[in-house]
């Protein structure tokens, strides 16, 4: 589904990604783990075109996307829940959600997709017509996730989705992800600080350190590998 090869990305002189390669099979959840500053966010941003790669290639289902503008990448079915939520505070909750599904066109379908999101997060349903700026931190996170799902993506990039969510909701999201993979064949690239939770639902896990891939393994194997776990995941 997603292939990354030799990806290098920099901020000025800082190398945030250093020859990163990874392969994400279709219908899988891949966890991206690593300490703060390891380059996880940069990796997701590079995939969705927000950060231009210096070199290397990124392909989705065989199609190169590293030169495409973000919006075209998204239109290939890539949804990105960015770090820090990225809601549009001036628009209402409903408008934010609608935007997530708009690129797919198909109006009737859209209403159904919105309803699903509201069903998933009933708190948002109550706030449909309110500007998103009034939402609490967790509610914003819900909106951001719900919005990404409203586009029915093929590949979902999640940057710390549980940030600010109550434990119950965070767990719910994790379960939802594995459910979606099963039911609708979604492919997920999941960045999480809560490595334990991420590994519990992931098929594979990639560990980044200082912009490099230091491990790329089966999730269960990684969870069992005490050495790696201690060195990079701190538990």
């Amino acid at each position, binding site marked *: 589904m997603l292939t990354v090869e030799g990806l290098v990305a920099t*901020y*000025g*002189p*800082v190398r945030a990604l250093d020859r990163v390669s990874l392969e994400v099979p279709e219908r899988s959840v891949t966890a991206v783990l690593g300490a703060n500053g390891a380059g996880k966010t940069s990796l997701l941003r590079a995939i969705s075109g927000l950060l231009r790669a210096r070199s290397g290639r990124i392909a989705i289902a065989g199609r190169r996307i590293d030169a495409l503008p973000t919006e075209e990448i998204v239109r290939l079915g890539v949804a990105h829940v960015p770090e820090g939520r990225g809601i549009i505070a001036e628009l209402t909750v409903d408008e934010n959600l609608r935007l997530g599904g708009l690129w797919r066109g198909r109006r009737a379908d859209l209403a159904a997709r919105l309803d699903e999101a509201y069903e998933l997060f009933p708190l948002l349903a109550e706030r449909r017509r309110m500007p998103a700026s009034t939402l609490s931190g967790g509610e914003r996170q819900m909106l951001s996730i719900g919005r990404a799902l409203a586009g029915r993506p093929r590949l979902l990039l999640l940057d710390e989705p549980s940030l600010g969510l109550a434990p119950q909701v965070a767990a719910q999201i994790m379960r939802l992800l594995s459910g979606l993979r099963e039911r609708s064949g979604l492919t997920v690239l999941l960045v999480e600080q809560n490595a334990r939770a991420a590994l519990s639902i992931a098929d594979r896990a990639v560990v980044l350190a200082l912009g490099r891939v230091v491990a790329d393994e089966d999730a269960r194997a990684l969870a069992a590998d005490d050495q790696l776990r201690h060195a990079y995941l701190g538990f």
Partner: protein
Amino acid sequence: MTARATTPAPAGGARELAGRAASRGRRLLDQTLLRNLALAALAALGLYLLSYWLGRFDNLQLATIAYYFVAIAGLTVLTGLNGQISLGHGALMAIGAYATIKVGESAELPLAALLAIATIATALVGVVIGAGAARLRGPYLAGATLALAVGLPALANRFPDFLGGENGLSTAPPVPPSSLGVGFALERWQAWIACAAALITFVVLANLVRSRYGRAFRAVRDDEVAAALAGLNVARVQVLAFVVSAACAGLAGGLLVVVTSLAAPGAFTLELSIALLTAAVLGGLGSLAGAVWGAAIVVLLPTWAEDIGRELSLSTSVEANLPLLVYGVVLIGVMLAAPRGIQGALSWAGGLIGRRVRGHTEPRSRGASAPGEEIT
């Protein structure tokens, strides 16, 4: 900015050994005042020599650049460091100019006192306007100050007897002191006065922006909520920034009287206000050095463009509009080529060269330098 913390000078009483004199010299330059004064003294010397080298009209241009600098420097602090946009600084200059002439008419005061009064008067008006401005943001502040720029000079028409109506007021130019000799050119004297005021403004603003006030200005600009939680009274900081820049505009207005001997509504049009703002952005927002570039461009560009037009012997309507054309092209061109303004581009280039020379890399990307570091 150095990472090392400057240690406070030891309290009085401790005797320094002679061998420490050199390090003391260096330490003296660490002191804000002395460093800025040294810079100003150097500039003063340069300007002094320049004023003898330049012809009379060019001295006048120098004086004009100096008063534009004063106004733009104040505006760059307001807009660049505090994030408040003002399209009304031309009107504040008008207050300084009218105050200079009115006070000068009614009392025999030395010029310095008149300029000080103009500065203070405008600062006081700045308190009122700043208090209103502190409630407004972005385009709404722009709109309000724009209305000010258009409306305030109209007061002159409301009180024609006092403010001279459309024709405004005139006054006599300053007289060079006789000690300078009889043949001393008026324009050089005007340049001296304006440049002296500009240097004072520079030193004061450079001190201020390096101080905690400058930091407070920037903090409020970046995040009002966080600034309030850190104990900054956001409204008060904003008013203070406005007052400082209004004072500069008032002084600039007073200097305009020194240079042109006039105060009239037609001199303080919206175009003036807009020119000040564009000059600040063009030079490099938030940077005092940028204010110098901005002032020089605003003053010199039209004159140069006009001369070029004359050389080219174009048709009259083309020739007349050429300076405008050039100005427009420069505004757009600089913004496209140097988004951080001239000073931003210079320091970027300087950083690049410096890096080459020193052979190591610095974590600084193009245009991403801290606004705070661009000052001076």
